[in-house]
């Protein structure tokens, strides 16, 4: 029996980059034994993201209220859970994550059976590296992750991830809402799920800006620290 694979693409104003991402995805040759479905989650975009996404033979989950990246991705998890998907892969709609790289996540998951596989910028030479300030931030999150999960995760802010059915169930239930990437790792590791990083190539985003910049980055650090701390303290139920 083939495995059901859901690609979750959270989108907020991505009309410029989305067509290329979707075309590459639709042309992607998956290994034997996978049924792929693509879900674009439109997080109440102000531009034509929704109309553009609807031109493709994919599913569009349309949020009426802007929920932020966490709430948008969680909608994808809820769909995956309701429809019995075995694997979900989160991929950004801004072209940062080349679709063919998701095969690396799949291979890693097949080989080791890890529950959560993260596509990392830092384990491999080449590809796009981020700015100095951003690297300091990522260093800090590495430290936090070491502290709260006891694992060495270098690119904890990467939104290029694979989740197996156990991780999907957990994330559908409770997923941090605003800046979910680093915090969710605490959630997964507390639930006893295994996490693995694999090197992937990332490109510069085709359009749009990161959701984290300038003053917001300080807020980002504080907020993530607090949310990781409390996820760590909270009892898993």
């Amino acid at each position: 029996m083939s495995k059901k694979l859901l690609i979750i693409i959270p989108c907020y104003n991505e009309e410029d980059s989305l067509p290329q991402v979707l075309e590459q995805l639709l042309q992607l040759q998956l290994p034997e034994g996978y049924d792929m479905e693509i879900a674009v989650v439109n997080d109440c975009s102000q531009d034509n993201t929704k109309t553009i996404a609807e031109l493709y033979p994919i599913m569009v989950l349309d949020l009426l209220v802007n929920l932020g990246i966490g709430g948008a991705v969680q909608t994808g998890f809820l769909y995956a859970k309701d429809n019995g998907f075995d694997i979900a892969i989160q991929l950004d709609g801004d072209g940062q994550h080349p679709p063919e790289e998701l095969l690396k996540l799949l291979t890693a998951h097949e080989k080791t059976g890890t529950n959560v596989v993260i596509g990392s910028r830092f384990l491999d030479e080449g590809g796009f590296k981020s700015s100095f300030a951003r690297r300091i931030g990522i260093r800090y999150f590495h430290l936090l992750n070491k502290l709260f999960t006891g694992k060495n995760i270098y690119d904890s802010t990467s939104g290029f991830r694979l989740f197996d059915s156990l991780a999907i169930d957990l994330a559908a239930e409770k997923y941090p809402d605003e800046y979910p990437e680093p915090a969710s790792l605490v959630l997964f590791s507390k639930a006893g799920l295994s996490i693995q990083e694999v090197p992937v190539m990332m490109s510069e985003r085709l359009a749009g800006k990161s959701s984290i910049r300038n003053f917001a980055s300080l807020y980002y650090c504080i907020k993530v620290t607090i949310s990781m701390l409390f996820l760590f303290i909270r009892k898993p139920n």
Partner: protein
Amino acid sequence: MARIQIITIVINILFIAYISRLIIKGKLREEYAIVWCICTMVLILFSFWRKGLDVMSKLFGVFEPPNLVFTGFIFMILIYLLHLSVVSSKAQHSITKLTQELALLKEKMEKADKEKQAL
């Protein structure tokens, strides 16, 4: 009865009447009204019982009675603000749930519609 007592009592009565009106019209939920009612009760109590403030200050060991009023009210306001943050967090959580469920339902409906048309 001193003039200031009469003024505060009248204002308090107006305030209670306004809160009741809001509740009756359904613009204020009872659970949030409780704290307002209690505040008004306390104010009314002290407007009738003028010596009350001095008595309470002595009880708490506060030298200047007005300081007790400020401290007490600032503390109550802080607690109430915290309560409001909790309420708004809860509301946000509900909105998230509703939005997600709605998106999933819309998708289901569209799929069903398409299948119907294909038949």
